[in-house]
């Protein structure tokens, strides 16, 4: 099968949906001729024109709000937010307006928009261009949240997001744009709320999101060398969440570690760990561990930045210790 990059997969997904549905359009900063700083959208403006690939001023709250109104009235905007860190700029329009309109109107208004943005540290971009803020939006009822972990996932989840009648926030890992994976030529969609079990195992469950799926798979390889069999699961979407698959795996293995690149405190790892602790408690042989990004602003210096995110070695070490029955406190 052909292999394409994650950037190309996202580009294909959006282009296919724009061909299929004339109400889909892209809006954001430097999305047209520039094709975004990561060149994810290159070529779209040539095919669809500036009427549907809309360059905006540097006004994140403005174009976010405009997209909410456009979505309410019959179009399907794909909003391009250049860095996930800029979520803080659009919080009112995303969380007070888009997320609540359907509920507040008793189901009469819907907001079918996609906010595509990114996450991920270790790009030496410092604290305002490196955050992984998906927990923030997963906290707000009314938003769906998708975290693709490969080119294949990115294409299938993006197409589902564009067809969804709710506001969907989709986070791509900005370090994975050039990573290739097998992506079929023929059309496919990946449904929301269905976790992906990437590797089966019996000793410990490793739950990873986005780029942390690769970290968990690498950790599983390290563990296999030590004779420990790890199951690796990608939830794919935080909202809706396929809780059943996570719980079933934790019940089977009796041990679970949740790995995510958001800050560890009050984050995604805490939520998933709590659900497993509540619903698999009597099957557990060890506390469920959380491994998130260090609770510090992301530092610039490579010497410091690399310390802040979970690594395969750290995940494997924690997993090995709980499998040996050692008491482990998450950092």
């Amino acid at each position, binding site marked *: 099968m052909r292999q394409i990059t994650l950037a190309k997969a996202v580009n294909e997904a959006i282009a296919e949906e724009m061909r299929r549905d004339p109400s889909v359009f892209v809006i954001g900063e430097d999305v047209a001729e520039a094709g975004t700083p990561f060149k994810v959208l290159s070529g779209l403006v040539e095919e669809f024109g500036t009427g549907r690939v809309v360059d905006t*001023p540097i006004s994140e709250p403005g174009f976010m709000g*405009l997209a909410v*109104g456009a979505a309410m*009235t019959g179009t399907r905007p794909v909003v391009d937010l250049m860095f996930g860190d800029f979520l803080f700029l659009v919080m009112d329009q995303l969380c007070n307006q888009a997320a609540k309109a*359907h509920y507040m109107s008793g189901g009469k*208004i819907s907001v079918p928009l996609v906010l595509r943005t990114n996450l991920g540290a270790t790009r030496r971009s410092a604290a305002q261009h490196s955050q992984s803020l998906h927990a923030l939006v997963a906290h707000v*009822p009314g938003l769906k949240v998708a975290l693709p972990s490969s080119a294949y996932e990115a294409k299938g989840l993006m197409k589902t997001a564009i067809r969804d009648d709710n506001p969907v926030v989709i986070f791509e890992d900005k370090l994975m744009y050039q990573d290739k994976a097998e992506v079929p030529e023929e059309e496919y969609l990946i449904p929301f709320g269905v976790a992906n079990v990437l590797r089966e195992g019996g000793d410990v469950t490793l739950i990873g999101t986005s780029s942390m799926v690769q970290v968990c798979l690498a950790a599983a390889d390290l563990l296999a060398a030590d004779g420990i069999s790890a199951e690796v699961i990608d939830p794919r979407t935080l909202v809706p969440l396929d809780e059943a698959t996570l719980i079933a795996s934790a019940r089977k293995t009796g041990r679970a570690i949740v790995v995510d690149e958001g800050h560890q405190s009050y984050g995604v790892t805490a939520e998933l760990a709590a659900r497993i602790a509540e619903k698999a408690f009597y099957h557990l042989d060890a506390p469920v561990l959380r491994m998130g990004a260090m609770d510090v602003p992301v530092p610039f210096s490579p010497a410091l930045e690399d310390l802040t995110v979970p690594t395969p070695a750290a995940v494997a070490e924690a997993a090995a210790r709980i499998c040996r029955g050692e008491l482990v406190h998450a950092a």
Partner: protein
Amino acid sequence: MADPTPTRNAEDYLRMYRQMVRIRAFEDQANQLYLSAKMPGLTHMYSGEEAVAVGICEALEVTDRITSTHRGHGHCVAKGAEFQAMFCELLGKQEGYCRGKGGSMHIADQSNGNLGANAIVGGSMGIATGAAFTARMLGRDDVAVCFFGDGATAQGLMYEVMNMAALWSLPVIYACENNGYSEYTRTEEIAAGQILDRARAFGIEAHRVDGQDVLAVNALAASLVQRARRGEGPFFIELMTYRYHGHHVGDINRDYYRARDEETLWKTERDPILLFRDWLTREGVATEDELEAVQDEVSRDAEAAVRYALEAAYPDPSEVDMHVYTDIPHALA
């Protein structure tokens, strides 16, 4: 009163009059519901500003969109909403426009193009601009009107979306209801320079109009709506008006920021309904008796709607996790 739009006839005038009277009657009933502790929460009265909502909405088609504010009952009525579903919404009843989930500050009536009141001051400016974007993108000639108060002109979002609306010639009309007060503060204390100049800085054609004169408002709105449909937008209107009540129904002891004499002066000399009533009788459009009959009929309608809403059912508890998502019947199931 200004010269009317030439195409208007007696039927149009009487409909405008009735709509203004309906807003006043609605607000009088809502205020009583609050004072008698029958309404959950609180609400913000539109009384005194009727000529603004009616003058503008009478220039719109049902397919045109509006966005409204926390002081939004007037816009909702003027855009075509019915009393019964509105009072049900204010009382949190299932038959409300939003099934009781929005209440006064979020009342929306999609069927008449009202995209909703908004409890974030200035929060709907992007939404109205986006509605205009849809019209342009899909090749429709719909217009969007964004209602907001003088207080909202202090929000940054307004300048971001006016910039885009001007760059892209979007069919949106920004209607600033300047009632002289930004919550509990006089507007001159929060607004530097002239509000109109802010729109003009983006090259947007901006007008100031007497917001107590429904014919002046309507004539201006009709002309701008027509031009916006032809792609000449956006436009900005500052409507000079006055709110009779405090910031909200509970803001009763307000002498510290506003003189009672000032309120009395506006209510007696500048009331939009009395001014229009005088014009209608003077011009021979209707007699005092006929206008009185309209008032009585509207009052009876409002009373009946309140009685109905008070007796109406609350939403079933199973509704609490419905409508969180379009495709998940119960979000917590």
